[in-house]
C-alpha cells in the first residue's frame, strides 16, 4: 500500500516531521517499509528549451540537442525522438542524481560531448512511460527548477499492513488512522452527483439482480451515458503511478483512483456490450468460461461467484472483469459496479485462478459495508469530471447498505486488569472515541462500545483493549512480573538425553550438524535402498521448493554424507560429525509419517589432529566408530549394545557392518560406508557411519540405587593366552567366558590378538586378562586356579582352543 503525502493531506493535516510520523506509525502497528521520492528534485533538475536537434554522426539512434537552460546554451546527447524544436524538456545538469541513484556527469558519448541529460518521466520516477522525454508545458521559462515547475507527487509512504487492517488500504483510511493517532481532525467530503434530470431513470437503462445474496450482500450500480473515453490528465497518471498502478484510460483510471481513495474496489462495464442491458450476480455453472481483462480465458467452477449478463459470465466477482465487456476507446455508456463480495469466496476464486488483484486483496480482507453507495457516487462524479457524460437518475441498489453495527460490551476495570496499565475511565473512552468508536457509558461498569463501520476487525473486548493501548502508546507499557507458585518444570523424556549425548560426543571430538529435514528423493537411490525397503515409504511435500527438498528424510545418513562431501571439497577431510533429529517414516504410502528421534554419526579421515608426535597417521576404521558408540553407552549409563555382524544394509560394506541390537530389539546399524555409495556422494576416503534410535538407546538404563562399596578384599589377576582356529570370533570367546557367570570373575579383558609364525598358520592367539575377587574373603590360589581351569576347559570344548605355553 502506497500513500502519497500530498494526497493524504487532502484529508488530514500532518503536524509533524516525516520521520516522526513514520515512527509513530511503526509503534502503532503500521510498518513503513520505505519512503519514496523523499527528497524533492534538486536545482540540478531544470526546465530547458530545445533550440536545435542534430543527428549524431556516429550513432543512428542518438541525436545531439542544443538546449537553452536559462543561463545559455548547452549540448546534450539524447536517444529519444518525441520532441521538437521549441519544446520544454527536463534537463538534469552534471552533478544531478537520478531517483535510481545514477549520477549525471559531463561526458563524451561516441565522440560528442554531452553536458547533462534530458529525462523521461520514468527516469524522473514520475510514472511509467516509454514514449520518450517528459515534456513540460510551454509557458514555463527555461531555467525554472523542476521542483517549482512540476514537483510531482512528492514523498510517498510504502506501507506493510497486517491482514487485520483492511481499513488502512485506502488514502482515507490512512487519514483516519493518522488523524486518530495524532489527534488531528479528518476532513471528509460527500461526493456530488449531478443526475441528468431530463434523461431516463437508471432503472430503465440497466438492471441489477443478485441471486447469490449471501456472497454478495450489497450491489450498487450507476449508469452513465455520453462518456468520452480518452487519456487521463497528468495529475491522475502520476498519483496512480505513485501507488503502483499504470494508467489505462480515464474511466478505468477513475475506478482505480476511487478504490485507492476510499478502499472500495470498483468496476466499469461497457453497458452496450452487456447482453440484456443488465447484470446478475450468481454462482458460475461448472464449465462456463470467462475471457478476463488480462487476456486469459479461465474455466470457472461452480463455487466461483460471477457477474453475468444474459449470455453468461462477464466478471469474476471481486477479482477481475471480463475483456469483452470492459471499457474501450469507443465506449460511451457505462454500468458502474460498487459491490461487497464475501471475503472467503473472493479469496478462493482468486487463489484457484492464480489472480491476486488490488480488488481481490481488499475484498479478501473485508470492505466497509456502508461504503458502496458513496463509492459509486464518487466514481460517477469523477468520471463526469474526467470523461464528461451524464449520470442517469438513481442508484441501482440491491441489499442492505447500513448493516447493524458491531456493539461490544466493555468493562473499563477489565481493560486495566487485562493490560496492567492504569488508565482512567476518561482516558479509555477518549482513546476509543478518537479511533472512531462510539462509547455508551450509561452503565459505568460495563460500557457499550460501537465499532466504526470500517473496523471489520473489531469483535470482542480484547480487540478494544489493544486499540486503547495502541493509541495510548505501546512504548509506555510498564514492566511488571506475574506471581506464580514455584513449580518443578516438566521436561520431555529425551531432553536430557540429547544434552548428555551432545556432551559425550563433543567431548570425544565430534561436531554437531543441523541439516534440512527436506531432502531429495534421489538420495534414496544414491544410498541404494531396495525397491521394497520400508524407508522408501517417505512423506512427500506437495509443494516443494525444488526436487532437492521434496521428501522428508527417512534417515539422517545422506544428510551427513552431504555435509562430509561439502567439507571434503573445501580441503577438510578429517571429520567427526553427528546430528540429532527426527526422521520421518510412513507405515503406508501417503499416511501421516511418524517422527523418530534419531542419532547419526559419521567419521572420516584422521580421528586425532596431526601434530609433531601424532600417535599415528592412521585413518578411522569401524572400531573407532564402535568405540565411540560404546563410549556413548557407558557415558549414558545405559545397558550395553549388541553389535551383530550383519551385511544387509546395502549402503554398508557387507563385511564391515553391524546391526545394533539390545534384547532382540534392533536400534540401528553401524559400519563402513560402501565405497560405491561414498562415490555417489563424492567421498573419496573410507567413511564410518552409524545411525540409531535415540529413544531406544536410552530405553534400558543401568539401574543402581546407590554406588557399590569399595572392595574389601584384594583382587587376583591372571593372564592366559589361548590358541584358537584363525576364524574364531574373539568377541564370541569373550562372551562365552562372561556367560559362564563365574561369581569370582570380576572382569575379563581381551588384551592381545596375535597371528603369525609362533602360533602356526590358520591359528591365532588371544590374550585374556581375568581378574578374580571374592566379596567376603581373600581368595586363595586354589580357588582362583579352579575357576581359571574351568575357563581353560571351556576354551578347549567350545573353541578348540589350547593354552599357549
Amino acid at each position, binding site marked *: 500500500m502506497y500513500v502519497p503525502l500530498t494526497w493524504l493531506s487532502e484529508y488530514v493535516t500532518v503536524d509533524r516531521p516525516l520521520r516522526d510520523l513514520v515512527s509513530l506509525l511503526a509503534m502503532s502497528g503500521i510498518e513503513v517499509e520505505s519512503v519514496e521520492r523523499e527528497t524533492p528534485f534538486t536545482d540540478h533538475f531544470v526546465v530547458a528549451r530545445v533550440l536545435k536537434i542534430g543527428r549524431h554522426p556516429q550513432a543512428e539512434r542518438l541525436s545531439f540537442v542544443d538546449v537553452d537552460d536559462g543561463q545559455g546554451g548547452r549540448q546534450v546527447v539524447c536517444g529519444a525522438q518525441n520532441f521538437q524544436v521549441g519544446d520544454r524538456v527536463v534537463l538534469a545538469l552534471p552533478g544531478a542524481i537520478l531517483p535510481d541513484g545514477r549520477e549525471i556527469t559531463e561526458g563524451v558519448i561516441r565522440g560528442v560531448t554531452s553536458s547533462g541529460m534530458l529525462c523521461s518521466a520514468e527516469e524522473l520516477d514520475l510514472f511509467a512511460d516509454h514514449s520518450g522525454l517528459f515534456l513540460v508545458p510551454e509557458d514555463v521559462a527555461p531555467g525554472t527548477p523542476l521542483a517549482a515547475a512540476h514537483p510531482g507527487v512528492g514523498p510517498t509512504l510504502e506501507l506493510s499492513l497486517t*491482514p487485520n487492517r483492511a481499513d488502512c488500504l485506502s488514502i482515507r483510511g490512512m487519514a483516519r488512522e493518522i488523524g486518530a493517532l495524532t489527534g488531528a481532525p479528518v476532513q471528509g467530503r460527500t461526493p456530488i452527483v449531478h443526475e441528468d434530470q431530463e434523461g431516463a431513470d437508471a432503472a430503465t437503462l440497466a438492471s441489477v439482480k443478485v441471486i447469490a445474496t449471501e456472497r454478495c450482500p450489497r450491489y450498487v450500480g450507476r449508469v452513465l451515458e455520453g462518456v468520452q473515453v480518452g487519456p487521463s490528465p497528468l495529475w491522475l497518471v502520476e498519483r496512480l503511478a505513485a501507488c503502483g498502478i499504470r494508467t489505462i484510460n480515464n474511466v478505468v483510471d477513475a475506478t482505480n483512483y476511487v478504490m485507492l481513495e476510499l478502499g472500495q474496489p470498483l468496476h466499469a462495464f461497457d453497458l452496450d456490450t452487456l447482453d440484456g442491458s443488465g447484470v446478475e450476480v450468481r454462482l458460475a455453472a461448472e464449465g462456463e468460461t470467462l475471457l478476463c481483462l488480462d487476456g486469459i480465458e479461465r474455466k470457472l467452477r461452480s463455487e466461483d461467484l460471477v457477474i453475468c449478463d444474459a449470455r453468461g459470465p462477464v466478471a469474476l466477482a471481486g477479482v477481475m472483469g471480463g475483456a469483452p465487456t470492459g471499457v474501450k476507446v469507443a465506449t460511451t455508456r457505462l454500468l458502474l459496479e460498487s459491490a461487497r463480495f464475501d471475503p472467503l469466496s473472493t479469496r478462493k476464486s482468486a487463489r484457484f485462478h492464480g489472480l491476486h488483484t488490488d480488488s481481490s486483496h481488499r475484498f479478501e480482507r473485508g470492505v466497509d459495508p456502508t461504503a458502496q453507495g458513496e463509492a459509486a457516487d464518487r466514481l460517477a462524479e469523477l468520471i463526469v469530471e474526467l470523461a464528461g457524460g451524464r449520470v442517469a437518475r438513481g442508484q441501482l441498489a440491491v441489499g442492505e447498505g447500513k448493516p447493524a453495527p458491531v456493539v461490544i460490551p466493555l468493562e473499563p476495570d477489565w481493560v486495566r486488569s*487485562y493490560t496492567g496499565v492504569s488508565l482512567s475511565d476518561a482516558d479509555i473512552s477518549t482513546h476509543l472515541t478518537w479511533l472512531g468508536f462510539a462509547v455508551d457509558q450509561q452503565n459505568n461498569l460495563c460500557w457499550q462500545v460501537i465499532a466504526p463501520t470500517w473496523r471489520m476487525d473489531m469483535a470482542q473486548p480484547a480487540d478494544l*483493549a489493544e486499540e486503547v*493501548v495502541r493509541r495510548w502508546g505501546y*512504548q509506555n507499557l510498564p514492566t511488571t512480573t*506475574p506471581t506464580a507458585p514455584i513449580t518443578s518444570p516438566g521436561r520431555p523424556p529425551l531432553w536430557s538425553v540429547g544434552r548428555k549425548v551432545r556432551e559425550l560426543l563433543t567431548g*570425544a571430538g565430534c561436531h554437531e550438524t543441523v*541439516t534440512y529435514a527436506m531432502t531429495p528423493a534421489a538420495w534414496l537411490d544414491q544410498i541404494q535402498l531396495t525397491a521394497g525397503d520400508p524407508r522408501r515409504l517417505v512423506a512427500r511435500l506437495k509443494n516443494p521448493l525444488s526436487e532437492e527438498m521434496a521428501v522428508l528424510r527417512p534417515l539422517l545418513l545422506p544428510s551427513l554424507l552431504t555435509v562430509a562431501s561439502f*567439507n571434503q571439497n573445501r580441503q577438510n577431510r578429517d571429520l567427526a560429525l553427528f546430528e540429532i533429529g527426527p526422521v520421518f517414516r510412513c507405515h503406508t504410502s501417503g499416511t501421516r509419517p511418524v517422527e523418530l528421534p534419531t542419532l547419526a554419526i559419521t567419521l572420516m579421515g584422521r580421528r586425532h589432529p596431526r601434530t609433531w608426535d601424532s600417535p599415528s597417521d592412521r585413518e578411522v576404521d569401524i572400531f573407532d566408530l564402535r568405540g565411540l558408540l560404546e563410549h556413548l553407552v557407558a557415558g549414558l549409563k545405559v545397558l550395553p549394545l549388541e553389535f551383530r555382524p550383519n551385511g544387509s544394509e546395502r549402503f554398508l560394506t557387507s563385511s564391515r557392518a553391524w546391526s545394533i541390537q539390545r534384547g532382540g530389539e534392533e536400534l540401528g546399524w553401524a559400519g563402513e560406508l560402501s565405497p560405491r555409495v561414498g562415490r555417489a556422494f563424492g567421498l573419496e576416503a573410507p567413511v564410518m557411519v552409524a545411525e540409531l534410535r535415540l529413544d531406544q538407546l536410552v530405553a534400558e538404563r543401568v539401574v543402581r540405587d546407590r554406588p557399590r562399596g569399595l572392595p574389601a578384599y584384594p583382587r587376583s589377576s591372571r593372564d592366559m593366552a589361548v590358541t584358537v582356529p584363525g576364524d574364531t570370533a574373539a568377541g564370541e570367546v569373550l562372551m562365552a567366558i562372561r556367560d559362564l557367570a563365574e561369581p569370582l570373575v570380576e572382569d575379563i579383558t581381551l588384551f592381545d590378538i596375535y597371528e603369525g609364525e609362533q602360533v602356526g598358520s590358520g591359528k591365532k592367539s588371544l590374550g585374556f586378562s581375568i581378574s578374580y575377587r571374592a566379596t567376603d574373603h581373600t581368595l586363595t590360589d586354589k580357588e582362583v586356579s579352579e575357576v581359571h581351569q574351568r575357563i581353560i576347559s571351556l576354551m578347549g570344548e567350545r573353541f578348540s582352543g589350547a593354552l599357549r605355553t
Partner: protein
Amino acid sequence: MASSLLSLEQEAMKDIAAAADENSLMQVKARYLGKNSELTARLKELGTLPPEERKAAGQAVNVSKKKLEELVAARAEYLRDHTDVGPALDLSLGGRHLPLGSVHPLRQIGQQIEDIFIGLGFSLEESPHVESEWYNFDALNMPDGHPARDMQDTFYVEGGTLLRTHTSAAQIHTMLRQPPPLRMICAGAVYRADDIDPTHSPMFHQVELLMVDHSVTFADLKGVLSAFAAEMFGPGLPLRFRASYFPFTEPSAEVDILCFKCRGHDPHCRVCKGTGWLEILGCGMVNPVVFQKLDRPSYLAPGVRGFAAGMGVERIAMLKLGITDMRLLFDNDIRFLRQF
C-alpha cells in the same frame, strides 16, 4: 689452619657441583670424605693438638664434613633425577591434543533459551513437525481462507498434513493436555516455503512461550520477556513493545530490545543499522478465540487469560554471534563449527 679448611671446603664444593654423573660424584666423595681424605686425616690429627684448641678444631672439621656430605647427597639426587627421566626434551614444542568437538551454535542458543525459561518455571513441551491444519492454523484463529495464512507460506505434505509453520501449535497441544495454570515453552524446527537467502531459510527454529493463569497482564508479559532478555543479551537493556498483529494474540506486539552493541548511540551501528533497536520476537495476550476453540471448560472459566510469545532462534543467534548470512548456520562448514 682454619683458612686452609675453608679453601679445602670451597675446592670440594666446586668438584661436587662439577660432577656430571654418579660415578664421578662417588670419586669426588671419596677424595674429600673418604678414608684417605684430608678431612679424615685432620680428624685423626686432632689428638695431636693442644687440648685448648682441640674442641674448636674438631667442631670446625665436623661442620665442614657435614656440609659436604649434604652437598654430595643433594648432588646425587639431582643427578638421579636427570638420568632417570631420559634424554633432554624440546620444551618449545606444543602439547598432544585431544580432538575437540562442538555443539552446533543453533543448539547452543536454543539450549540457552530453554535454560532461561526453565529457570523461570516454564516446562518444556514437544509438538510434532508434521502437523494437521487444525493445530497449525484453525485452532490458532486462522481458519481456512484467513488472510493471515498468507503471512506464512506453508509446505503441505501428501496425505493432508503440513509441516508446522510455527511452534505455536504446541500451545494447543499443551492446553489440550493440561488445564490452567500453566507455563510452557516449546523449541524446535519450523518450516516455510521461503527460498534460501542470507535472511531466509525453508527450515528454521523457533521457541514458543505460553503462560496461562488468572491474573496475568500484558505488562506481566513484558516483565517475563525483560527477564529473558536480561539473561540472553545482558542486563540493563530496555524492551520496547510495538503494536502488531497475530491472529492468536490480542493485543499483539513486536518486541524490540535496545541495541546491545551501541545502546542507541551509534548512527552507523552495524548491528542495529543505526535504529538503536533490535527486533527480537513477537508476542501478545492469548486471543480469547483460541481458548474458545479448545472447547475445554477450564479454559473458559471467568478470569482465565494468558500470554504467548514466539522467537526465532536463528535471528537471536545471528544477532548474538554477529552473523549476517543465515546460510552459514546450515552449511555445517567444519571451519565454522570449530569456532563454537
